[in-house]
């Protein structure tokens, strides 16, 4: 008789524990399905490099730590049919100028694939032509072997040079975050400006929320592949 009285009372802790387990589980499922936070995927470690900029100074990937860096790959003599990414970089420079980045510097780097012709003087003239802000936009190049390792092997942009010294490559932009992780590569040309701007905002948002509990939530967003849809 006593047992029959006991059993309904003892069901309650089971309900309580079940509920306590179900709430975080439901929260996780809701987070994974609704994706309230979007992040830009981490593609992999960006390549390390030592290049020479348009003033003859060295620029390394370590100098750019803590900055969000937008790269493009071109030559100063890129003319049709070569698709020039410089207008995209100009648009992004204007976008970044007007943007409140919350103290996180956003830098642009143009890597020239043609060290033979793109001397520092020529890069300086190119920068002036593009209205580049020297504090924000670097123009660099290096030896052909190093360029092949960094741009070909690291950023995975295929390029070749014919017997007349003309370079052939597809237009490409890349974004590297402050931790030196490659976050985005755009290979489709001019239509990517809007997507690049959106990704830049997301990377900045993540950098601002990278510490404490917010950082953990952003890590969860990476775990559940909360990536923006194209």
């Amino acid at each position, binding site marked *: 008789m006593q047992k*029959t009285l*006991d*059993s309904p009372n*003892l069901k309650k802790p089971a309900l309580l524990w079940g509920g306590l387990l179900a709430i975080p589980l439901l929260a996780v499922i809701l987070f994974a399905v609704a994706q309230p936070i979007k992040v830009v995927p981490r593609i992999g470690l960006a390549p390390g490099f030592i290049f020479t900029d348009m003033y003859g100074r060295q620029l390394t990937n370590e100098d750019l730590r803590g900055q969000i860096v937008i790269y493009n790959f071109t030559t100063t003599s890129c003319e049709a049919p070569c*698709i020039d990414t410089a207008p995209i970089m100009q648009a992004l420079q204007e976008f970044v100028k007007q943007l409140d980045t919350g103290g996180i510097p956003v830098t642009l780097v143009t890597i020239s694939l043609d060290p033979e012709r793109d001397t520092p003087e020529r890069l300086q003239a190119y920068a002036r032509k593009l209205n580049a802000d020297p504090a924000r936009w670097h123009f660099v190049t290096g030896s052909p072997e190093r360029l092949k390792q960094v741009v*070909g*092997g690291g950023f*995975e942009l295929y390029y070749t040079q014919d017997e007349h010294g003309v370079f052939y490559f597809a237009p490409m932009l890349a974004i590297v975050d402050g931790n030196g992780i490659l976050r985005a590569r755009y290979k489709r040309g001019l239509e990517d400006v809007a997507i690049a701007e959106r990704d830049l905002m997301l990377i900045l948002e993540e950098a601002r929320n990278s510490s404490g509990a917010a950082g953990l939530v952003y890590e969860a967003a990476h775990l559940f592949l909360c990536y923006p849809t*194209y």
Partner: protein
Amino acid sequence: MSEHEHETQHSTGGEPGAEAHGENGWLHVEKWEGVWIRVAVAMTVVFIAAITVAAMSFGITVPGATARINPMTLNDPDSPFATPGIRELAPGKYEVYMVAQTWSFLPDRIEVPVGSEVTFYLTARDVIHGIKIANTNVNMMALPGQVSVLRAKFDKPGVYNYICHEYCGYFANSPIGHHTMYGQLIVTAPDNATETVQVTQ
């Protein structure tokens, strides 16, 4: 003594309501039933652990839907799929743009030196295809409109055949060609490479 009485009460039946519950009100579980429940739980834990370990340590990577592409634009002059094949990004690093179509792979022959790291970009021109390179980790779906990307390293020289592992359809008025959809990946050893150089010289 009272415990013994309790046991006998159970075996004889007793009150129908009290029978389902054992000591302390918990559900009464038979000895062997309990053993098998524990075995089942332990197996689940072992399987989850095995999957986790395999995912972390065996280099298994799931091909991601990293990009979308309009199948109508595959032959556009600026599309890398217009000239499918292998390209050397840097020494030891290659990329392969591959198109699967009814019923062939473009390219159907890939040659890389041993130890190369190869990134495959795969899409389909028409219907759903798939690729499996035998004896390697490469196993991907090829969907029209989507680019599947997978990175692989080939450490053993040899000839690896690849096939379509998706029954990619039968069109009216055309013969079935699924079984003709295959290709070869040739991983060349360093001494083979010097041999061919000597031959061409």
